[in-house]
């Protein structure tokens, strides 16, 4: 009886051990899922011109470059207001990712269609993400 219990326990531990490996193996996918979520929120924000949709991913280490000349590192408060002003003047109509990668160094780029003083124009957008702990922040946002 005791021997059976021991065996039983060994098997349990074995499966637990295996399970933890599987879990570890699953983690990258969970991380990739997170980067996808970030891209989705950025997509939503760029389509609606709402910075609040993705402002939580902006940080002091986000590099911003816009066609209006703003270029460099700003604080998250400044980023919010600069982008807000930008979208007030260049009202987004539509944005689509042409390329979107969610691997080790997630990045994507696409075309943003917007309205400026009554005219429709387009701009190329580049976004890259960087992992910070378990989360992602926007490393670079370029709209040219």
């Amino acid at each position, binding site marked *: 009886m005791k021997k059976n219990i021991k065996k039983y326990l060994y098997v349990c531990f074995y499966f637990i051990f295996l399970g933890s490996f599987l879990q570890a193996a699953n983690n990258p996918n969970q991380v990739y899922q997170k980067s996808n979520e970030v891209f989705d929120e950025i997509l939503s924000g760029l389509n609606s011109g709402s910075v609040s949709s993705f402002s939580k991913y902006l940080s*002091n*280490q986000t590099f911003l*470059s816009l066609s209006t000349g703003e270029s460099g590192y700003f*604080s998250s408060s400044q980023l919010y207001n600069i982008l807000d002003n930008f979208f007030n003047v260049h009202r987004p109509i539509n944005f689509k990712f042409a390329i979107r990668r969610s691997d080790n160094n997630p990045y994507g*780029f696409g075309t943003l269609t917007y309205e400026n003083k009554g*005219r429709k124009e387009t701009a190329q957008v580049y976004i890259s993400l960087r992992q910070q702990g378990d989360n992602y922040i926007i490393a670079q946002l370029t709209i040219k």
Partner: protein
Amino acid sequence: MIKNKLKHFFIGDRKYFSFVVILLTAILLIGFFTPRVIDYKENNWSEISLTKQVKIENEIIRLFQQKQKDLINSSTELISKLKLKNEKNVEEGKIFFSVINDKEYSGLSILLFDSTHNLIGWNQNEKIEFETIDIDTLNFGSTEFIENPLNVFLFYSDTLSIGGKKYFLVSAKLFEQKYTFSDKKSDQISFTKLVEEQFSVSVKIGYNHFKPKSLDGREFSFSLLNNLKKQIGVVTALSPSINADINTFRSTVNKIQTLLIFIGFFFFIVSLKSDFKKLSSDLLKILLIFLLLFFTRWLLFSLNVTSLFVGSSINNPNYFSSTFAGGIVKSPLEFLITNIFLFTAAIILFHFCRKNQNAINDFLKFTIVKISVASVSFFIILLGIRGISASIKSVIFDSTLRFFRDQNLFPQFPLLLMNINVLLFTISGLILLLCLALIIQNALKDKINFRIRFYLFLVATILLMSYLFITLQKEPLISFPLLVIVLIILGTIHFIINLNKNSLLILIVSLTVSSSFVSIILLNHFNLELEKQSLKRTAIEINRPDESYFTFLLNETLLHTVNSELISSYYAQDKTNFNSAAFVTWKNSSLVNEAFNSSISFLDKNRNLVGSFSKGVDERFIAPKIFFAMKNLELQVLDISEETESEKIIFSGITPIISRGNILGYIVATIKYDPNLLTTTNPIYRTTNEINDVIRLSDLGIIKISDRYVRVIAGDFIPTEDDISKMLESNFTAENEVWIEHNINHENFIIYIQKEKLNDSFYYTAVFQKEREVEWILFNFFKISFIHSIILLLICLTYLLYNWKEYYNIVNSFRYQLLFILLLTSILPILALAIFNRINVEENTNEMIYYSLSEKLNLIESHVKQQLQDHPERELQTALSKVDEELNISFNVYRNQVLYFSSENYLKSANVIGSIINPAAYSSFFSKGALSFYEQEFFEGFPNIVYYRKFIIDDENYIFSINDLFNEVYVSYNPNEFDIFLFGVYSFAIIIIIIFSSIIANRFSKPIRQLTSTTQAIALGDLNIQIENRSKGELGDLINNFNKMTNDLKRTQKEIAQLERESAWKEMAKQVAHEIKNPLTPMKLMIQQLVISYKDKSKNFDESFGKITSTLLNQIETMNQIASEFSRFARMPNYNSEIFDLLQIINEIEILFKQEKIEITTEAKSNAVFINADRDQIRRVFINLTRNSIQANANKIVIEVSEDENKFFISVKDNGSGIDENVKEKIFNENFTTKNKGMGIGLKLAAKYLSAIEGKIELFNSSSTGTTFLLTINKSK
């Protein structure tokens, strides 16, 4: 009845409600008519559009004609001058140069050719490629455009004849600059941009006479005609868009409505002014004011007033932006507006607290309440300091403005505005903290026992509370030493303000100086933190660009260029300088903003290279051979990095240029990422993305470590293996980063290390910064304090101008004259020293630059000679190229006046560098025979020192030049930085001198002022006054003698008064005796007669009795009258009755006792209190009461004036030691006094004076905390 009610309601200020109604109506009407106007526009758009087009066309043509006219006028004037000057038979060459280079013509490019078409004169502004000018094809006397890929010029050509010789003049004005090196787009000269901004229209201009007009219905075109009415250009503009027009209209309507709302709001507030004044509760008033301020600020913010009416850089969140409080500080301008409101609220609250200290005292009755309130107030002070600290941290971190790195003595406007914001905010914060300090002072007033033990206990408590406050927080935002410093400053201002309650100027100066000090130390503290954080950003920036980004960037660059009509036009024109075209294309692309190297090149349709511009990309990558081998080339980007150089990443992209289905050529864009080349310091290649915009590159070190291989990217800090081991063995966080402090080569460094994993290997990026020295911290302090000093000076000047009447008389006073002399004798030598030092440094700096450039040129000369000697077969161009490669020094060579060789070959081939030598240099060499020359010049707006020297090589004249723009020249002091330090130090020193001189002048003039005010009091009848004498020497003797004189005067006056009284009484007694004696004698005789008549039983006794008794009664009546007369005479004093304002008398008393340690405040509901009395007597009453209060150790008197229908009630309340209970009833008795000195008739006289005008004075109450007298006086009729 309703009409009357309304009339009654809308009296006084309420009449302004009518304006509010009118404005509201206007807003509604505008709202009503706006859609109708829009409908009208939509329905009649074609006509409106045509009118607009005609207007735009006429305006643009007018603008162009004006510029053309100016050019022609300047040119004809120049020709006249040239002719005039040369008629005086002076050497032509010299005259040509001097006239052409006159400052008047600095806006033009001028070329002068002789009859053989040789260039003989030019000015320093020359930018036209003179080789492209074909004299034979010019239409003299007319204007034309000349266009190249870099610029468009409007030029005018003409001939002139001087001394029988013919000359050709070309003068040109820059019309369109297609690139700029400046950060500011506004510096770029562009007629197109000017027109677009002025007329809000999108415009393209063809600067040639064959450009056709547009047939596109969405556009309209018109010609630009020259002075001979010939077409020289075509303007094509987009037809006005109805949507854009409606948007503009709506925006204008929005602005008007916003303005009307504000004016309406203003009148609404004004209409409630009288009602506001009638409120009795000060607390209610202050709450309403705060509500008003809050609402007004909210209104300004929600209506977006700043964006509507102010569109400039100060509204740009790039400079500063915080999301605090929903965005009321989202730009420097919004921050300023919020600051103004905060400052106003702080001032009002402070004034309220000072005025209502009695109310506060009444509230703080119990000890437990006092201690609780004091503790809570102190805690709020600590929170307030933390709040100020948090705000200044936001100013540093949420801003791209670098307070301490700006090189200018006077900063640019956005930075200046932020400096003002920081100062104003700190002042407001300190004022609010002073309110709390006032509460604490009132709470602890009774407890202060002036013993050292008490103060030690208080200080210990404060320090302990502060320490706990810091240590118990996760993020305290301020260090303990800084907190203590701020508390000390706060205590000091509070003390100064208490000492000088009546001086607003001292309050302003002490607050501003303290706030400046606090804000600078906090700015500096957070800037150090920012510098530390910037090391992390630098590491991120070094590693930011990767393959995906390069691909994106090249794709975007090529897409952007291929759609440009301009690029197609390059292939359409003959003789296009494709190097210039490549430069302009590169300058206008996204590549220019990046720190890494890049290039643009043009290929023809056969894929031959026709032109290129490169910033640091090797020639073999400009047009990679890989593209030549490909068959069909569509837009693509490839990684062409070489395996041998793994750290250098090279990407290149290509796209065809197609016009009407035909391939005209190709554009190739290349990026070369080499970390070592990210830190270029050449200002002309300065990008917006600096590696680190907080710390100078010279103070930084950057290294990359991989597999123990160390690569130095910037700086000259070379760590040893031990250093590297220590760095790599540090404890990295979960985010793979670490901060360490380490000593390398006996210098302390702060190091940030970032770890990255790539394919099972770790790579480290380490960024070093040297620890800051004290001099640097002092430099930063003085840099900002200079700006604050200027602000303080302006505030003081404004205050003095506003109160000029008050200060005009004071300026003539002894104190201010003494102060002026002290300042003059101290400041003048300092200023002289400052000017001397400045001149010295400037001269030394120029000498150092000259010496350095000269040495470099010596080196070049020797190398060139060596090259020619060793390789006589080599051409000079080749030899110069070799020297350039070997020495890595940038230099130019001119053969006669033309540029022959330049180290900056790409700029030369793109014609960005001018092809002709500086005319002043040329003139000095060839007219004056100089061997060297140097001058400050400007290259694309960048000032630089250029040094020229003449050499003779193979019997030909060559002029070598070298400048400090493309070559690093070491100077021990940057003149700009020295200016900042000098002005900062001296302005700080001047403030210290002013403060100490004021203290000294005040101290030395105090006895004189005391004498003056005492003399005034004596003149007004107060002889009880004595001056406290602490002075020694002559002044001490003067004061003693003055006091003695006053006492003698008082005694003499008493004696004289006594003698006069005695004499008066004697005289009166004599008079009385005489008057009474007069009727007594006949009365005695009559009674004697009556007695005789009675004894004689005379027959006429009855008749006699009647007569005699009647006479006796008359005499008695007479005597009674005499007695009454004398009695009235004794009662009635001499007094001069007049109607006057009692408040004026009280004001005189306030001024009279200003120098004494007593504060007198008056509170009266009315602006004037008119009574009918003797002015001198009433004055003496108040002097007496004040003197009594001082003698009862009071330091504050509050005089309150209230009224009913017929009388004024004046209460005089002091905070002295009060009157003893057992003497209260005697105080109005004559000759009663509790003092050692005095006659004891002051209050008696006061009572007498007031009763003479049917008023009265009574003791209202008295206790150990003060005494109140109540005076009742009838109102004047």
